[in-house]
């Protein structure tokens, strides 16, 4: 970064701060005032409580720490009316003696048991509030972090994946659009975490992996996002990193309608335009699916219109959500219906370097070409969910949840690749060989999950609860099509393009169906108070079906030149190289996973000590069946094993607002469904192999956390963790087959260690708030890498051979330093709310290389987002959100100089520090802006 851009950024930052400050200058009170804090009987701040002065226009709303101030009062006698949902209204007489008096009046509200229904589990706090989030963090048996709906609403996050990066210890893995997609918990690869909806595991639509892409879930249906960093015996045991639990909005205590509408624009679409293709012509079925397995496809079976793109200025992004909640039948039946729709036009400018490692001893990355990529993605996200709870009587209660989440992506990828080889590449003369590629890809992912839960107080000390869950995840990628052309740059002029051969069009889809049952018994005599015994079990039957078919197209005639034979894709004439398709690809498989689990858990709560201990037994039967096994392949296989997973949690209350928490748990991580299929995939560079012998990962996890909750919203958490990971799964080079072919294969590698420190700090000062967290992670794993050497290093004529060398490095996906900082301003009275948030992700091991010391690291990145909200009436808020203010780019480097031939220095483009590191990828997303209106109606309005 040069000085100029630095200055620009600084100016930008200053402008932002100025806006922020303008919005936040508090008015100074000159006359008498009343101030204080509104709390409940437990000294919990009641954020948002109303303090009215009867017969006067003055009122206040309790701030983030429960404080309120009513200023501009004359001397006299007043009646303050303090109210908050779920609490008895309180009237308090106050007399002001003189005009300069400042009266401090603390208010304690009493919970209204008649109004507050018992089935509102979380008690006094408003659902989705920060207060509720802090309460759960404090009282949970797990090491847990929570982001409340309120915090999400205030952030510019549109999907759950955006939200998770604000949790301490979490970083994200992005998709090619730059959108966060997967959670990396404490530097543990995404494989080590699982995803829950309302505590129930959901299957992934991802074809190769079992982890769920979090960008499919819209953030505005969340009540809160919970991240578990430790497990108790009643939770499924395959989360070594942690678990992400999306708690969806549930029925409120009284009628409530909430909605919001947002319009937005992404600056990149102004700069670069948006490449749109006609997705409506895409055939959902390939000719082979449509006409049978022996059908010989012809070019006329395929549409040509899907590969014609237009660079347009898209309509603004539109995001809307609506939720309705109410209670019926004397509050026995609760209903929450929510829907969300988002239509956004995302764009990314990206640079990718194609490179290989020099094979003559220098072991440096040597550049082959640079690709200029422009991604344009229309993302249509739709979600619909309902939550019903019915309280039959005091003993019996039923809950039904159904959710349908859909993410439809229409992605256009335009690549212009410049080859950097030889004398031919001459940036000063404007000469280079070029290749162009247009790809259009429609991806339709959906998750449907429905669960029926029952809660029964059987006999006095015994409670039973159960759940039956059906989930279905689908991923459909029809006609992923590419149009590849060759070209040349001569004298800075791009020459007419000719059509390249082997243009693929592929169909891929997969479906997962999970059927799960849970049953739990809780034994808790009233004399035990908070202590209890819990036992239960679960069974899941999972089936996956995966389909893959690909056709290759060659131009026919072979030479078709732009301007002569064609101008658009439709003009090109083709022949199909493999008219029958490729249905025997190993991606045509079925997989299953049947899990039986039982557990016993005890909780002992005596005075300051709370001990949670338990043991869980999980029995796994995981396997696959190839639909068209090839000779020499095992057509099916199963792994059957049993794990015993103990856990122990100790929480010691050092004082009323300070906990010391220790947790230990043992967890596993099962191989992906696809990883154990004995597949062979040709990829760039090394081929990829499945590994039917892949073992599950086992880990012992220890957490120690000191927690301080000075009041209901402030907190300070300091924790350390240590994980001993047995047989971690990583990808490394193996030699296979009679040819001794080097291939990339997932394998188990000895024992890895991962440890770190987490600090999470939240503090509100009346109208201001600071939220910050920081995580330091350190891990080590040893895997084998390859270097090229002469068989006899002293003899230059001896054969070049590959040698395996062990390398110790951090776990893949890990960043040593991760931090979040949010500055909040909230003026309840005037209805202003504002947040400036920053996410820092330090240098992170992005991808491992098969070669020694050639791993790819993403450089540290700071993302800065801003949002501003103003309540304009009792029912309406308007807001403005701006993301990626600094236009931070995501850069990936190999920490080695760019290879140069001896005595010949090529000026490679975009390489900012070729003496020390090699840039292999850089993504830029530019700023996005959204403004919107949020409305809510309560029963009493």
């Amino acid at each position, binding site marked *: 970064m040069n000085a100029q851009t630095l200055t620009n950024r600084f100016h930008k930052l200053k402008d932002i701060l100025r806006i922020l400050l303008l919005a936040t200058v508090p008015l100074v009170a000159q006359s008498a005032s009343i101030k204080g804090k509104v709390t409940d009987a437990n000294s919990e701040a009641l954020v948002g409580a109303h303090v009215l002065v009867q017969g006067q226009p003055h009122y206040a709303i309790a701030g983030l720490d429960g404080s309120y101030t009513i200023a501009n009062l004359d001397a006299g006698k007043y009646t303050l009316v303090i109210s908050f949902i779920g609490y008895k209204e309180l009237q308090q007489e106050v007399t002001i003696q003189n005009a300069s008096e400042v009266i401090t009046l603390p208010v304690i509200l009493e919970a209204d048991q008649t109004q507050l229904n018992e089935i509102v589990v979380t008690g006094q706090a408003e659902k989705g509030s920060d207060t509720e989030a802090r309460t759960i963090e404090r009282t949970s048996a797990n090491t847990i972090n929570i982001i409340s709906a309120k915090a999400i609403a205030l952030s510019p996050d549109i999907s759950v994946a955006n939200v998770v990066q604000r949790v301490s210890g979490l970083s994200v893995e992005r998709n090619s659009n730059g959108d966060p997609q997967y959670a990396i918990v404490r530097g543990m690869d995404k494989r080590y975490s699982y995803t829950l909806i309302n505590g129930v595991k959901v299957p992934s639509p991802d074809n190769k992996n079992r982890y769920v892409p979090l960008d499919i879930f819209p953030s505005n249906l969340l009540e809160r996002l919970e991240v578990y960093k430790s497990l108790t015996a009643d939770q499924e045991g395959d989360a070594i990193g942690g678990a992400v639990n999306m708690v969806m909005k549930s029925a409120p205590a009284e009628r409530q309608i909430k909605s919001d509408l947002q319009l937005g624009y992404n600056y990149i679409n102004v700069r670069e335009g948006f490449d749109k293709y006609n997705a409506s012509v895409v055939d959902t079925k390939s000719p082979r699916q449509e006409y049978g397995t*022996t059908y*010989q496809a012809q070019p006329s079976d395929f549409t040509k219109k899907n590969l014609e793109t237009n660079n347009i200025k898209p309509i603004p992004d539109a995001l809307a959500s609506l939720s309705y909640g109410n209670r019926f039948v004397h509050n026995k039946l609760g209903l929450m219906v929510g829907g969300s729709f988002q239509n956004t036009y995302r764009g990314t400018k990206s640079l990718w370097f194609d*490179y*290989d*490692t*020099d*094979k*003559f001893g220098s072991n440096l990355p040597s*550049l*082959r070409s640079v690709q200029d990529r422009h991604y344009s993605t229309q993302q249509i996200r739709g979600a619909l969910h309902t939550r019903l709870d019915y309280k039959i009587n005091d003993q019996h209660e039923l809950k039904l949840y159904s959710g349908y989440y859909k993410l439809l992506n229409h992605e256009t990828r335009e690549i212009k690749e410049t*080859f950097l*080889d*030889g*004398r*031919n590449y001459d940036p000063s003369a404007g000469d280079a*060989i*070029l*290749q162009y590629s247009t790809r259009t890809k429609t991806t339709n992912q959906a998750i449907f999950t429905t669960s029926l839960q029952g809660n029964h107080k059987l006999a006095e000390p015994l409670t039973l609860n159960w759940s039956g869950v059906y989930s279905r995840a689908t991923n459909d990628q029809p006609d992923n099509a590419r149009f590849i052309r*060759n070209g*040349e740059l001569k004298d800075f002029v791009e020459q007419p393009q*000719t*059509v*390249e*051969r082997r243009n693929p069009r592929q169909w891929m889809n997969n479906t997962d169906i999970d059927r799960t049952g849970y049953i739990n018994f809780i034994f808790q005599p009233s004399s035990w108070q908070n202590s209890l015994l819990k036992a239960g079990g679960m069974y899941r039957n999972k089936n996956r079906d995966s389909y893959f078919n690909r*056709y*290759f197209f*060659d*131009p026919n*005639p*072979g*030479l078709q030149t732009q301007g002569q034979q064609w101008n658009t894709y439709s003009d090109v004439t083709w022949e199909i*190289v*493999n*008219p*029958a*398709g*490729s*249905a*025997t*690809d190993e991606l045509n498989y079925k997989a299953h996973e049947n899990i039986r689990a039982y557990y016993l858990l005890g909780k002992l709560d005596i005075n300051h000590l709370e001990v949670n201990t338990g043991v869980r037994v999980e029995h796994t039967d995981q396997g696959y069946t190839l639909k*068209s096994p*090839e*000779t020499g392949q095992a057509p099916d296989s199963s792994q059957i094993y049993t794990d015993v997973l103990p856990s122990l949690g100790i929480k010691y209350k050092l004082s009323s607002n300070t906990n010391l928490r220790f947790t230990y748990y043992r967890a596993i991580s099962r191989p992906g469904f696809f990883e154990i299929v004995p597949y*062979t995939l*040709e990829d760039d560079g090394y*081929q990829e192999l499945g590994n039917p012998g892949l073992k599950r990962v086992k880990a012992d996890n220890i957490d120690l956390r000191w927690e301080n909750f000075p009041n209901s919203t402030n907190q300070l958490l300091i924790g350390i963790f240590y994980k001993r990971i047995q047989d971690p799964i990583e990808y490394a080079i193996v030699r296979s*087959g009679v*040819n*001794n*072919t*080097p291939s990339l294969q997932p394998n188990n590698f000895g024992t890895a260690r991962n440890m770190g420190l987490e600090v999470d700090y939240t503090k509100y000062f009346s109208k201001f708030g600071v939220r910050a967290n920081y995580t330091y992670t350190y891990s080590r794993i040893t895997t084998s890498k390859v270097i*090229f050497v002469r068989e006899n290093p002293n003899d*230059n*004529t001896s*054969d*070049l*051979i*590959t040698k395996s060398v062990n390398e110790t490095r951090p776990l893949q996906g890990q960043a040593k330093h991760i931090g979040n900082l949010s500055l909040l301003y909230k003026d309840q009275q005037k209805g202003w709310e504002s947040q400036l948030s920053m996410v820092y992700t330090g240098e992170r091991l992005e991808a491992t290389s098969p070669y020694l010391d050639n791993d790819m690291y993403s450089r540290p990145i700071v993302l800065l987002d801003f949002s501003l909200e103003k309540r304009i009436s009792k029912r309406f808020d308007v807001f403005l959100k701006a993301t990626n203010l600094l236009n931070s780019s995501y850069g990936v480097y190999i920490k080695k100089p760019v*290879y140069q*031939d001896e005595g010949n220095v090529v000026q490679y483009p975009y390489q900012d520090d070729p003496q020390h590191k090699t840039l292999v990828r850089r993504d830029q997303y530019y700023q996005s802006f959204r403004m919107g209106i949020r409305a809510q109606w309560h029963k009493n309005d």
Partner: protein
Amino acid sequence: MKTLLNKFIALTAIVACVLIASCSEDEDKKPSAPLVTSDVSTLPIKFGDAKTFTVSVSAAGRVKDITATTDIGTVTVSDITGVGEATGTAKINYTAPFDTGSGKITVVVNDQAEQQVTYIVSVDVTEQPPVELTAGDVDGVWGPSRTYIVRGNLRVPAGKTLTVKEGVTVIVDGDGTQANSPEIDVEGNFYSYGTADKPVVFTVADAKQTKENIFAGLWGGILATSTSQEMVVLYTHIEYAGAPAVAGSTIVTSGELKEGDPRFGLYFNNPNGEFVMMHSTIAYTKDDGMRINQGKLLIAYNTYIYNGKTGGEAVNIKSGSLGDVAYNIFYQPATNGVKWSNSDGRTPQMDVNVYNNTAINGGWRQTKAGRGGSFNLEKTGRGKAYNNIAVNCKYGTRFPKSPDNPDVANCSLGYNLYYGNNDVISAEFYPSTGSVVKGDFETGNDISGATGANDPKFVNFDVTAFNYQTAANADNLDYPATMNFALKADSPALNKGKTGFATKFTSHTVGGTTYNVPAPAAYIGALGN
């Protein structure tokens, strides 16, 4: 003693009587000449078949001998009876040759009166009916001179051998689809022993041998697996191969090709195996003419015509290969005549010498700019590239730049002749996408210069008529006219070659025969004058 004496007296008396008797006959008249009859008068017979017939002789003068000769095939006489008697018989055993034709068997009978009679049986030799083969295992010997129609995938099982003799024509009944494009998988050994006069031909039915099908890829090719120890291909034509690979076939399961990728004319894949191919032709393939994934190889005196529609090499050699490629002609491949690289990094490191070859009009159908057009040594490969001619090829010999560069410390290059009839061509004798400029290695000894200079002066081929733009489009191609790439006496390529350098091997002993690796010639190119 007495009896011996008596016997002697008796014998003398008999001899005297006979002599008297014969003297008296001679004086009278000779006995009738022998009369020969046969149970056949004409003999229709198929290639290589054997037939026996019987002749009967009535010889008043007593049978003396019966012999037979033929002007086509072979004949023997056996079971002769009646010698010294008035009647006799003999069996005539005839074996047909492997050539179509008519001829005769001449049976000669002599009697003891010195009278000779000949008897003619006319022979009509016709071709054997074709052998039809459906999918399954094959081994043993094919031919000679027989037609085989292949209607399904054939396999030579591991440990077994298929020997194809001279004159065999194999017609593979393929249509270019994955469903119906047979291949011949060789898990054992494969020997195709054609001769200069009677080559072996692997092709498609006559009706399918059309200009439109030059790059159609109608059948799967001859594909060896890693268990194949030896392959010898002599005087063999392989044409119209390259149909898309089929799921479950070894070439797919081994990972060499993905289902649907075009197959090759020939494929060999055993680092410890021996591959010898000489005096053969691979023509009209959809992609690579042949690929040697690994193995010890000798590829010499072959001709390659029109390999690859829009990409593909005539000869593609990968890591794990060692050997020599010499005296071959590469006529208009899509990309290179020879691409040899250490790609996939197998052991041993690829080391192949490519010398005394002639590449004509290469590289133009490859749609990708920057790819090679004559001889390409890549990806940590090593070897020598001497004495090659490249005429009107898109690029001269190319050593790519890092990261695809060959093991230049162990590469040699020079003494090559480049000719281009257009500036576009002469500008790329030393390819701008490669690392070599004239003067590097031994390229100072190259014969190369301006456009139109250094015409190698082929006996029958006009190098000036070439149009590179027309050549870029496969649809413009027709079967090549007669051509002869031998050099005229005034060729600049004569006596400019490098001699004396070591070939990778000196000989290969395969299938019981030793094949010597030809030494480099004093001239440049595949053929001298």
